[in-house]
């Protein structure tokens, strides 16, 4: 949902190889629920593919239509939903549990109103605390199915998930009822209207989804979350999987991204442990991106209330749901809130270009202002939009010249890690000590100058207690490779003939010194394979993923429930609900701007011939696709009098204007326009660069195409720059929004 298979940041070669065969033989079918058709690794001309052209930013409504149908037909797995804890669910053959039966306090006068009921609220005694536990374990309350009495969730094997009543004199409801309420808020006809799909489609998928036991899966497609109501779309997937208990099950929503401990504390080296690391954490410091905290928990709020302010409002929204957010960090930097970024390092990144709505004059002017960002150092191989605004540029190595250990991405159930290593000598300058200029060398040298822990002599500790230096990339990453080589069963030593074939005996001497003589031949073996992948047969056990861990699906999110909006006082829904896109104070955007005047939504998708902010500098990629297009539905275009190839102008309510070439085609849902990102560069070779007095003219071909401009949020104080974003997670409003389209 929300993305074509293979067009979404998951390995499209891998997905193609695993699905095409099965589609061809009729073993699987795929419903592609996406406003824009194309760009994936399968096409609707392949067997078993159905395209459902959903209206942009309505994923939650589509999911809730399916949920409603399943609830009406009672085709959910009631046994699974009754398990109040992981152990009971596991004993019942599953690999996850839900909080469907956990009770929520709905008594407005109770101090814990909106919270999940705890043992103390119910007058129940908590089990003795585990002396080994580092954080307190919460004990929730359920109504035990056998006794009909309140019980602690860990002490019941089956509980009621549709309970409404009183416990210990407190009004409570089970979590599942909140989902049910929200699902029944609209009829299927209404959901069909909201989503631009049909009742028959939702009914068909609902029926199919519950017909295979645990062998069905709802998955998040990337892109679906990057709308201003993306959080609700993200919640839709686990909500559906919870109805059938398919999470972490073989043939269901299997585990993925399974790898070994490599750059962390592993079998051979403790790469995450640094002696003397400053005790700065989320407990005593605040992320500049305003996450992991409610505004009401900040010292700013407390100080303003103490000073007599009633209901103070923050300059920018606070987001307690996500861990961190790069686009929100950028927004904080340009608005100098909650504090100033005094030194900014932009490393191989282009946040300003990659965030829809950020690449605009007002943001660029702020980043040019040395009183806003006093020192900006970029580290990159090219001068992209970020680096263009830097004071210094540190040359970095390319992917052919650097190391990295990656957990397997993509919907693949096996285990393994990919290893990137310096397969060729870097082209950056050689330093006086034989290292090459790179990000790692920069970090090491700055750290040494500042006398920081974690770099230089004795920076890394092996599991046997030996200390090692960290002076260059190989010192760190080859130890991570050793961790991988020794995980579970150590790999064999590299074969002599493989050493010869890959010229591994010609690698720098410093590499061999970075690990022990015992480790070196095993490290080489892993390098020679570009990583280590375990046989797929070992990935499943007794109908479950062999890597399944305790996994909870929340039908009621207490964290969300308590997130009172400081601008309007509104509480967001704690359960999955269809909420139209809103601004930061939770006012629906359609109440601020007229849908008649701004009838279109954007669908901003990953391009095949660019990569986020990269690859526009490649002449070969430009030959394949010189620019992107504003892609319009055939009927919409006819109504607007726009023909394929016309120049069109797209505007949004906050005055942004985008001009580009129309591509009028089938495969675009009504009332949206498709636009690939990665185009419309200002820099990255599009700009002039004068180095040591020699001018290199920019190449306008690199700038070709349109950069989608998301509107600004109008609900904040004047002078604040806040591109439209999801109110819970802060993800950019890349798709959705409000636009008008006209022939230029």
């Amino acid at each position, binding site marked *: 949902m929300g993305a074509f298979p293979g067009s979404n940041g998951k390995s499209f070669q891998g997905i193609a190889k695993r699905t*095409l065969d099965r589609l061809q033989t009729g073993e699987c079918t795929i419903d592609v629920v996406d406003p824009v058709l194309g760009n994936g690794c399968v096409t609707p001309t392949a067997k078993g593919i159905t395209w459902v052209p959903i209206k942009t930013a309505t994923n939650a409504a589509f999911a809730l239509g399916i949920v409603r149908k399943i609830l009406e037909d009672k085709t959910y797995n009631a046994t699974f939903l009754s398990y109040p804890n992981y152990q009971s669910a596991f004993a019942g053959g599953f690999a996850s549990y839900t909080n469907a039966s956990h009770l929520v306090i709905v008594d407005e006068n109770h101090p814990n109103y909106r919270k999940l009921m705890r043992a103390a609220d119910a007058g129940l005694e908590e089990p003795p605390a585990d002396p080994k536990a580092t954080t307190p374990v919460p004990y929730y309350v359920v109504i035990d199915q056998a006794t009909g009495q309140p019980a602690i969730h860990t002490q019941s094997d089956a509980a009621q998930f549709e309970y409404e009543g009183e416990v210990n004199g407190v009004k409570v409801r089970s979590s599942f009822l909140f989902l049910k309420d929200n699902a029944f808020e609209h009829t299927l006809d209404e959901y069909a209207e909201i989503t631009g799909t049909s009742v028959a489609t939702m009914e068909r998928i609902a029926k199919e989804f519950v017909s295979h036991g645990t062998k069905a899966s709802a998955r998040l497609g990337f892109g679906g979350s990057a709308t201003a109501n993306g959080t609700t779309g993200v919640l839709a997937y686990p909500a559906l999987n919870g109805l059938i208990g398919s999470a972490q099950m073989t043939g269901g929503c299997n585990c993925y991204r399974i790898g070994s401990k490599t*750059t962390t504390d592993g079998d051979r080296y403790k790469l995450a442990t*640094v002696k003397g690391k*400053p005790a*700065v954490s989320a407990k005593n*410091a605040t992320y500049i991106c305003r996450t992991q905290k409610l505004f009401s928990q900040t*010292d700013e709020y407390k*100080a303003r209330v103490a000073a007599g302010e009633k209901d103070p409002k923050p300059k920018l929204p606070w987001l307690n749901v996500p861990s*961190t*957010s*790069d*686009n929100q960090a950028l927004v904080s930097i340009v608005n100098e809130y*909650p504090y100033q970024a*005094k*030194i900014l*390092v932009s490393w*191989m*990144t282009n946040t300003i270009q990659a965030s829809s709505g950020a690449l605009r004059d007002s943001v660029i002017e702020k980043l*040019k202002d040395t009183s806003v960002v006093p*020192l900006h150092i970029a580290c990159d191989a090219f*001068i992209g939009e970020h680096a263009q605004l830097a*004071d*210094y540029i540190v*040359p*970095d190595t*390319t*992917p*052919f010249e650097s190391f*990295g*250990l*990656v*957990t397997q991405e993509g919907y693949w159930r096996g285990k*393994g890690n990919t290893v*990137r290593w310096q397969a*060729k*000598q870097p082209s950056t*300058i050689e330093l006086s000590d034989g290292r090459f*200029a790179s990000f790692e060398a920069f970090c090491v*040298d*700055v750290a040494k*100058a500042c006398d*920081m822990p*974690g*770099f230089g002599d004795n920076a890394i500790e092996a599991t046997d207690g030996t200390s090692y230096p960290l002076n260059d*990339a190989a010192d760190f990453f080859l130890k991570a490779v050793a961790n991988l080589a020794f995980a579970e069963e150590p790999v064999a030593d590299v*074969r002599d003939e493989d050493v010869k*074939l890959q*010229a591994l005996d010609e690698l720098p001497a410093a590499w061999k010194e970075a690990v022990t003589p015992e480790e070196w031949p095993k490290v080489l073996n892993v390098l*020679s*394979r*570009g*990583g280590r992948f*375990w046989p797929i047969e070992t990935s499943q056990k007794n109908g479950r993923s062999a890597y399944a861990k305790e996994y909870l699906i929340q039908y009621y999110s207490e964290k969300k429930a308590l997130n009172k909006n400081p601008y309007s006082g509104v509480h967001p829904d704690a359960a999955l609900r269809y909420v139209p896109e809103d601004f930061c104070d939770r006012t629906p955007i359609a109440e601020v701007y007229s849908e008649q005047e701004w009838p279109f939504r954007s669908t901003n998708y990953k391009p*095949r011939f*660019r990569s986020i902010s990269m690859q526009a500098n*490649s002449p070969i*990629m430009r030959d394949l696709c010189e620019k992107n297009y504003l892609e319009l539905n055939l009927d919409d275009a006819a109504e607007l009098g726009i023909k394929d190839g016309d120049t069109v102008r797209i505007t949004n309510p906050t005055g942004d204007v985008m001009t580009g070439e129309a591509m009028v085609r089938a495969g675009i849902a009504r009332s949206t326009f498709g636009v690939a990102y990665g185009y419309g560069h200002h820099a990255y070779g599009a700009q*002039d*660069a004068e180095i040591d007095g020699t001018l290199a003219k920019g190449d306008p071909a690199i700038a070709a195409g349109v950069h989608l401009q998301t509107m600004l949020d109008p609900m904040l104080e004047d002078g604040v720059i806040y591109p439209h974003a999801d109110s819970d*997670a802060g993800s950019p409003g890349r798709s959705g929004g409000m636009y008008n389209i006209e022939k230029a």
Partner: protein
Amino acid sequence: MASINLDRRSFLKAAGGLGALSIAGVGIAGQPHKAHAEDAAFPEQKHGQPIEATVDPETGKLDINDDVVVRYSACLGCYSSCGNRLKLDRASGRLISVGGNPYHPSCAYPYLDFDEPLSEAYQSMGFASGKGNLTRGTVCGRGQATQDVYAQPNRITAPLKRAGKRGEGKWKAIGWDELIKEVTEGGKLFADAGEDREVEGFKALHDTETPLNPAQPDLGPVSNQFVMLGGRGDGRTTIGTRFTNCFGSLNQYGHGST
């Protein structure tokens, strides 16, 4: 020893199409595992890159070109974390081409077992004994484009310092030691560009004790005003996180929400 100048047909036999075609490279059930064309379709190769090996389609005999080294690594054409195959000229170290890694589940399926020797990986790229067209290592167009992307002549290889207003696009090359000294010591770093201001360097900001705002101690220490935007899903970000945390800041941001 394989010759560099092969005719087009032999080239295809050995390289198995090199993964240039994303879908054609997949073994689809019910379709013949065969990609032989008529001899006449392929004119004799007069240009092009040396190939790594030939595999006799009938006997499976492998003939490796010692002039070419094939190394397996990780692709960074996007964030999908696929593997890749780098063909290098043994003598010069020059990158010849980029393809997929048959040991990697995102490039080949079924993928080669870790314990299979590299000779088996060469075999898998040909058509020998029915292996080639089943297990083939491919990367997509983005992955192949990485070679062109990083080969562009405007690549930065030496440190640059701005020589005009910020954003003006004027730079001067400086030495590595000068770079490290300036950014750590701070001072009037841009006097040449007409700026009189004192810039705080890393050393001045490296205070992990004093609150950055005494009225709001929850914001953290002075060092928390160091922010790093950077790090892709590239397995390399740990160094950035390590640096940022050891400096005394929480603020390291990878590509996550962009």
